[in-house]
């Protein structure tokens, strides 16, 4: 990703708006008793489009802001979302995204990974109560939501960051040449 001040400002705005929307809207609505989590979808989109460093730094920042707004221990959310963004970016650097279905599928899988990560952090810090099997159901339903919500999020992020995205040279070569005067 080519980082210019304008692109950086857009990235910051995306992360801030994403976190605000998550805590004020998505966390407070429920379908089938489950609230969607769009933050992993946003961070995975940034990772898939911008690479591992963009994914990692965006994830860390989003987690930090989320923990600040919820007055939760800092660092837990940052580590999970940073790992998610980094892995998504690594995928982009190692493999080619050839199918249009691949981004939403990856977003769903990485959302499941992030939810497991949030759970692992909570378990590591200590959980004093019994754990209902519904947690597993909720995580799976969140991944399904992420599949459907991930699609527009990915396309929106792609459109917003289009000038900065480094495209694959092979794909660029495969494009039909512009014919002058046609």
């Amino acid at each position, binding site marked *: 990703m080519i980082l210019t001040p304008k692109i950086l400002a857009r990235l910051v705005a995306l992360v801030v708006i994403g976190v605000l929307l998550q805590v004020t809207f998505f966390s*407070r609505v429920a379908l089938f008793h489950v609230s969607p989590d769009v933050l992993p979808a946003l961070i995975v989109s940034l990772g898939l489009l911008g690479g591992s460093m963009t994914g990692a*730094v965006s994830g860390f920042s989003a987690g930090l802001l989320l*923990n600040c*707004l919820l007055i939760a*221990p*800092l*660092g837990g959310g*940052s*580590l999970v979302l940073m790992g998610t963004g*980094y892995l998504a970016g690594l995928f982009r650097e190692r493999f080619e995204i050839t199918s249009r279905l691949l981004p939403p599928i990856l977003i769903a899988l990485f959302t499941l990974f992030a939810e497991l990560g949030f759970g692992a952090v909570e378990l590591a810090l200590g959980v004093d109560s019994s754990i209902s099997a519904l947690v597993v159901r909720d995580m799976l339903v969140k991944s399904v939501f992420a599949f459907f919500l991930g699609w527009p999020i990915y396309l929106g992020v792609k459109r917003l960051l289009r000038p900065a995205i480094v495209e694959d040279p092979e794909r660029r070569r495969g494009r039909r040449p512009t014919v002058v005067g046609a």
Partner: protein
Amino acid sequence: MYRKQVRRRRAVLALLVVSGFVLLTITYGRGSNGLQSGVSAVFSPVESVSDRALKPARDLVNWFDKTFDARGENSKLHTELEAARELGVGAQAAIAENRELRKLLKLDEGGAIPSGYTPVTGQVIARSSTEWTSDVMIDAGSGDGVKVGDPVVNGDGLVGSVTAATGSSAKVTLIADHSSGVSAKVVPGGNQGVIKPSLGDPGDLILDFIDSTKRVGVGQAVVTAGWSSRGIASGYPPNLPIGEVTDAPLIEQEAEQQVHVRPYADLRNLDLVQVLTGGWRG
């Protein structure tokens, strides 16, 4: 050039990982810190505006969720109606018992505010995003007299307690959060225990450590015990309604019994809450 770039990326990644662990170590188990207070002060008004602006959209999505629920419950309710007709006489007794319970709980007409406490109304402006924690943020903070440890109720009953407060906002840890534990009693009967959540299912609380020799029945009310002894006291005043017993399996040869409790308050869908400030804490 490429190696330099790889080294720089690794360094950034290592820095982020170390920062994450350091932040977690420093801030775990503490209330709000300077950074959080600052961020909260900046974003609280934005969250309030965003909360109000998005309310119609939120209500629409939640309406779909409730409609799906209502369709599923329709057939179940038909079966329950038949059973309820048979229990008509029992219901009359339950109404009388309810009047008695209301008297016992000292519920006033508007809600469930015990004497000596000053209620501060707060609007929920944010909610935790994972199933692993059950916290909400409200737009009332230490500037409004809210302190850490204050109990929080809504019109239906106990919701949770304040676990962190900044000048303009406060974090309320719900009774469905894994870190929550409320000393409670079953009424009538007075059988006491501790209300713990079942993580991931805010509609099902577990009243643990209750004496199995005393029988607890389905439908009985559960209220806060509000004990105090030698200068220490429960964080919750007595007789705040928590929920009703939905399942009370009697396991033989067990000295302590566990019963399932459905909270009166809809913990998934909170909007306005009241923080009970002041009051005696032992």
